[in-house]
C-alpha cells in the first residue's frame, strides 16, 4: 500500500498540487491537467492500476474532473483531480491510452460541456440526437426538473451505415428492439457473409438522468432511487451508495447489519446468475435450460421475499445499517430452502460440462483476451474468465461481512463464453457458502442491533463500491453539508463490460455474436407481477394480487 503511494509520489514529484488522504483506502490527489496524460500512462501501463471511471463536476466557478484508479491488489483508490475553466474548458484525452475511457469522455462532453482534444469520437452517447446543442443537463445552472422542448418530428435513429467501411458488407441490426436484448441497446453488426467484421454499439435509449434526479433528493431517498436503476441488481446499487456515504462519514456499522447486507447481496447474485444462465440457454436455442433455470430461481426469490417482503426491490439498505432484521427463529427454514437449490446447481454444472453441443457452441467463442480485458477495464464475471482474479468483495470489504466468512474468488483462463458460463455457475456455489456462514453467525448475534443512527451528512466526499452480479458498481457522492448530494456519480458494471463487445464479438459468426453479446450479461429489468385473466374475464385484479402476494409472504414467514 505504502509502496504504491511512494512510487506515485516519486514519479509526480513537485507536480502534485495537493495530496489528501481521506483514509488509508481513499486518496485524492490534485494535479495539473497538463500532467494528466503522463500520470495516466504511468499509473495504467507501469503500475497496472485499473481505471474505474471519471467523475465530472460543475463547481460553478470551474469544472472538475476526477479520474479514479483502483489498485485491485489492495483495494486502494487513487482519485486524480483536474480542474479546467467552466466555459470552453479542455482536458487532454486519455482514451488512446485506456480504451475503457472512451465512453466516459463522450458522456462528460455531452452532459457537462468539457472538451477532450485528441478524442476523435465525441459524438453523443446518452443524449438523444434531437437534444438542443449547447445545453448541458448536468451543469448546476440547469434547473432540477426543467424540460426541453422537443421538435415535432424526430428521427432518433443513429445514422446507420455512415461508418460502414468497405462494400459488400451488410449491417445486421441487433436492437433497439430484438428478442436477444430485451432492453434497448443497439448493436450494428457489420457482416461479410456470416462473419462479423465490426461491431458498432449505440446506447442511450433508456437514459433516465438518475444522477441529476439524485441531486434533487434527500440523502435517504436516494437509496430508493438508485434501487430503481436495475431490477436485477436492485440491491447492489443501494449497497454501493450507502457504502459511499459511510465512507464519507467514516462510519462503522453494527456486525449484525454487515451479515444481513451480505446475505441480501448474495441472494441477489444467485438469482441474477440463474436468470442469466436461463437466458444464455434461450439465446443458444436451448429453451429447456431457460425454463428450468428460472424454475430453480424461484426458491431464491422466495427467500428474498421472506426477508424483505419483495422479490426484486428489497429496500434493505440504509445509511448506517439495514432497514429490516432477519429473525433468528426463521433462519433454519431459510437455510433449508437455500440448500435445496444446490442439487439443481450441480445438475446445471454437469449439463454444461458434459453436453457436447453446448461446448461446441461456447468453447473458443467470443474470446476476450486478458490484454483486451485490461484495456477495456472490464470487471466482474466478464473479467474473471479472462484470468483477472479481481473481486471487490475481497479487497474493499468495509461494512460488509465478506471479510468475516470463508469463500473463494472464481477465475478461469480462456475468456470465452464457456468459461463465462462455468465461472458464473461456480460463483453461485460460493454464494451459497457465504450465505450459509452468514446465517450461522447471525444466529449467535442478538436481534435488533442493525443500524447506527445518522443525522447529518457533513461536507466531504466518499466512494463506495460493491461487486454486483455483473461486476463492480461504483458510487461517488459529494456533500456540501446540505440535505441532498451535490454530485452523485454512478457507474454500473455493464457500462464498462458492454464496450468490450467491440473486440469479443468481432471475428466470429452471427450465431457466435448473439451469445457473445449476451455473455457480458447486460442488465434486464422485470418488476411487476401480473393480472390473471381466465376465459376473457379478469380473475384477480391488481389490488387482489397485491393482497395475495402479501398473504404469500406472511405464509412463508410463518413457516419454520
Amino acid at each position, binding site marked *: 500500500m505504502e509502496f504504491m503511494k511512494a512510487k506515485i509520489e516519486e514519479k509526480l514529484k513537485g507536480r502534485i498540487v495537493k495530496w489528501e488522504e481521506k483514509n488509508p483506502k481513499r486518496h485524492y490527489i490534485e494535479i495539473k491537467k497538463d500532467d494528466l496524460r503522463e500520470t495516466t500512462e504511468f499509473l495504467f501501463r507501469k503500475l497496472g492500476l485499473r481505471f474505474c471511471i471519471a467523475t465530472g463536476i460543475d463547481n460553478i466557478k470551474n469544472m472538475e474532473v476526477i479520474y479514479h484508479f483502483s489498485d485491485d491488489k489492495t483495494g486502494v483508490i487513487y482519485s486524480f483531480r483536474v480542474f479546467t475553466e467552466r466555459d470552453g474548458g479542455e482536458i487532454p484525452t486519455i482514451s488512446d491510452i485506456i480504451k475503457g475511457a472512451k465512453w466516459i469522455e463522450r458522456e462528460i462532453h455531452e452532459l457537462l460541456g468539457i472538451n477532450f482534444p485528441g478524442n476523435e469520437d465525441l459524438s453523443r452517447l446518452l443524449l438523444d440526437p434531437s437534444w438542443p446543442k449547447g445545453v448541458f443537463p448536468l451543469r448546476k445552472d440547469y434547473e432540477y426538473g426543467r424540460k426541453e422542448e422537443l421538435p415535432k418530428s424526430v428521427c432518433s435513429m443513429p445514422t446507420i451505415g455512415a461508418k460502414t467501411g468497405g462494400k459488400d458488407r451488410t449491417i445486421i441490426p441487433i436492437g433497439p428492439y430484438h428478442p436477444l436484448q430485451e432492453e434497448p441497446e443497439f448493436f450494428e453488426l457489420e457482416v461479410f457473409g456470416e462473419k462479423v467484421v465490426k461491431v458498432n454499439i449505440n446506447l442511450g435509449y433508456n437514459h433516465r438522468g438518475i444522477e441529476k434526479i439524485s441531486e434533487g433528493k434527500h440523502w435517504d431517498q436516494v437509496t430508493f432511487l438508485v434501487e430503481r436503476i436495475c431490477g436485477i441488481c436492485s440491491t447492489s446499487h443501494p449497497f454501493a451508495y450507502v457504502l459511499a456515504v459511510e465512507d464519507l462519514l467514516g462510519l462503522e456499522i453494527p456486525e449484525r447489519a454487515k451479515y444481513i447486507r451480505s446475505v441480501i447481496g448474495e441472494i441477489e447474485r444467485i438469482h441474477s446468475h440463474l436468470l442469466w444462465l436461463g437466458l444464455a*440457454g434461450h439465446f*443458444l*436455442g*436451448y429453451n*429447456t435450460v*431457460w425454463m428450468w433455470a428460472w*424454475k430453480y430461481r424461484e426458491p431464491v426469490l422466495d427467500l428474498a421475499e421472506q426477508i424483505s417482503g419483495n422479490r426484486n426491490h428489497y429496500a434493505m439498505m440504509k445509511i448506517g445499517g439495514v432497514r429490516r432484521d432477519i429473525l433468528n427463529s426463521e433462519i433454519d427454514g431459510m437455510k433449508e430452502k437455500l440448500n435445496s437449490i444446490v442439487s439443481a446447481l450441480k445438475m446445471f454444472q454437469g449439463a454444461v460440462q458434459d453436453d457436447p*453441443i453446448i461446448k461446441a457452441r461456447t468453447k473458443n467463442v467470443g474470446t476476450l483476451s486478458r490484454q483486451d480485458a485490461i484495456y477495456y477495464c472490464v470487471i466482474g464475471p466478464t473479467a474473471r474468465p479472462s484470468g483477472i482474479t479481481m473481486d471487490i468483495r475481497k479487497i474493499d470489504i468495509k461494512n460488509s461481512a465478506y471479510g468475516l466468512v470463508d469463500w473463494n474468488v472464481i477465475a478461469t483462463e480462456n475468456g470465452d463464453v464457456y468459461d463465462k458460463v462455468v465461472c458464473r455457475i461456480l460463483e453461485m456455489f460460493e454464494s451459497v457458502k457465504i450465505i450459509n456462514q452468514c446465517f450461522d453467525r447471525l444466529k449467535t448475534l442478538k436481534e435488533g442491533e442493525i443500524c447506527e443512527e445518522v443525522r447529518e451528512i457533513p461536507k466531504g466526499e466518499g466512494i463506495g463500491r460493491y461487486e454486483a452480479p455483473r461486476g463492480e458498481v461504483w458510487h461517488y457522492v459529494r456533500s456540501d453539508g446540505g440535505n441532498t448530494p451535490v454530485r452523485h456519480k454512478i457507474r454500473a458494471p455493464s457500462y464498462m463490460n458492454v464496450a468490450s463487445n467491440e473486440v469479443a464479438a468481432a471475428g466470429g459468426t452471427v*450465431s457466435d*455474436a448473439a451469445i457473445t453479446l449476451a455473455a457480458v450479461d447486460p442488465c434486464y429489468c422485470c418488476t411487476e407481477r401480473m393480472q390473471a385473466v381466465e376465459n376473457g374475464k379478469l380473475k384477480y385484479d391488481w389490488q387482489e394480487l397485491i393482497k395475495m402476494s402479501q398473504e404469500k409472504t406472511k405464509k412463508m414467514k410463518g413457516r419454520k
Partner: protein
Amino acid sequence: MKEIFYYLVFPGFAFSITAGILASWVERKLTARLQWRVGPPILQPLYDIAKLFTKENVIPKNAQIVTFFLAPLLSFAAVLLVSTMVGSAQFLKGGFRGDIIAVVYLLAIPSLCLILGGAASSNPLASFGAAREMKLILSYELIFWTAIAVTWIKTGGLLKLSEIISFQQSGKYILFSPSGFIAFLLAITTMQAKLGRVPFDVAEAETEILAGPYIEYSGPLLGFFKMSQYILLVALPFFLCEIFMGGVNILKYFIMLLLVVLIENTNPRLKITQFLWFSWIILFPIGIIAIILALAGL
C-alpha cells in the same frame, strides 16, 4: 372427382390439417410440461391460424411481390400433395398413386419456398435466413436420400409406397435390420432439420436473426407457412413410419412425435457450419455404410 376428394378431404387437406393441429398441440403441450409450464389449450394452433387469416398482409416496399406471394402458397400445396400421397398409401390401398421419389421431391419444396420467400422479402435478416436454409438443404438432403435408398435396396427395388407397406407387413420390417436401423436414425435426424426444429433450426434462429425468412411475413401468407408446418409435422413422420415400420398407427406416430419433441428440448441450436460439418463428415459416411450393409443383405 375422386382425386379432388382425396386431395381436399381425406387424406388430404381436411384430415391432415386436423391431425396437424392436434400434433402441434401435443408437441407444444409436451414441450411445456418438460419445461415446467402449463401449456396451451388444445385448440390453440387453430386459434393461431384463425387469427392470422383475419389479419392484414403487410408486404415490404422493395419485395418481389409475385415470388413473395407465391412462396407460401406453393409450399402449402406441395405439403398437401405429400400428405395425400402418404395418407392414401396407408388408408386407401393404392387409391392415389405416388412413389417415394415423388414424395422426396415434394418434401424439398417447402424448404425451397422458404428460400424463395426469404430472398424475395428484401430484408437482410430474411436473406440471411434464406442463405442458411440453402446450406441446410445442402447438408441434409443427400443424407435423406441415402436413408431412403436403404429401404429401396432392402425391398428389392420397390418404389410404390403401398407396395413397400405390404412388403413389410409380411414381418420383414426394415427397422429391425442393422442397415435399416442406421438408415432410420439418419432419417430421424434429417426429419428434425426438415421440420426446422432445434438443434437444426438455424434458418429461423429467433434469438439471432428473428425467424429469418419468416420475418416479413404476416397475416394469411404467414398462415399458409404455418399450416404447411403443421401438416408436415404429420406427413413426415407418417412417411418415415411407412418406409421403415410398414405402416402407421397411433402408437408409432406418437413415438415419432415424442422423439421430435425430446430432441428439440434437450439440445441447443447448432451453428450452420457445424451442421454442414456434422452431416458431411459424420452422417454421410454412416449413410454409405448403411447402404453397403443393405447391399450385403443385412
